[in-house]
């Protein structure tokens, strides 16, 4: 039962990571690639981490070993750090790209360029 749940979570995570990688190749410019690359990958990573958490909790419950509790807690903290640092990095890349003059391709509207 637990193993099935873990496998399903891993498959969902892998599908989103794969789609993120395909998106990096398919999209036209840096901004749209950031959408695919940084965020689909984050969502995929959350699901793979969730698989670790589910597996660790089940083992913690059945075997009553604190090693698995350690694993669960550290994975949760890793996910929280991922959730804080990933958007910061994506924002920094996008801001630097716009400041160095790379304009979004096929954009229907660019308010930032009009203001500056």
């Amino acid at each position, binding site marked *: 039962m637990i193993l099935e749940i873990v496998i399903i979570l891993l498959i969902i995570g892998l599908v989103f990571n794969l789609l993120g990688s395909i998106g990096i190749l398919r999209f036209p410019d840096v901004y*749209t690639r950031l*959408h695919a690359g940084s965020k689909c990958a984050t969502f995929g990573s959350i699901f793979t981490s969730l698989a670790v958490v589910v597996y660790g909790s089940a083992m913690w419950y059945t075997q009553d070993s604190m090693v698995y509790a350690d694993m669960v807690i550290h994975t949760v903290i890793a996910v929280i750090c991922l959730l804080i640092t990933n958007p910061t990095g994506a*924002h920094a890349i*996008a801001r630097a790209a716009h400041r160095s003059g790379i304009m*979004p391709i*096929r954009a229907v509207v660019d308010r930032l360029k009009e203001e500056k």
Partner: protein
Amino acid sequence: MPLLNFIVTVIACLIFYLILTAGSGTDILIWSWQQFAVGILFSLVVGMVGRNVLVGKDLRMVNPRRWVVLIVYLGPFFLEMAKANIDVAIRIITGNINPGIVKIPTNLKTDLGITMLSNSITLTPGTLTVDVDEKTRELYVHWLDVKVKEPETSESVSGSLEKWIRRATE
């Protein structure tokens, strides 16, 4: 006030250290006394060095009610994120995009609120915060599928997230 900052920083550091080392022994609940001693020692050092870094202008985020709201906020946020992820996944496969940078006004007063909203917007696929106007509190958001060129509120970009963040930080 510096003393209060010091105490808050020490307690926050100690709690984080104890979470990281949970399960190290059985002396005090689930920690060994060595871990406790080292944790207290380093928390005091960090508190002395960084008491004005972790705590900003005021101590409003120490209030546990705000933390409860923040944890509840994860629910609508993950729902929003899952919906947007599926939407972007379809766009990756079909290649059907309509990008643009729009300006959205916000009503958040604190710096932490603005940071959280722009981080949440960036973490939701399909929207990416490019720049922020610090004086007028407006965000410039790169949107993968521009539905409204002149959004009146952040509702059309981020749903109800701004309401939740205002509840947590103001």
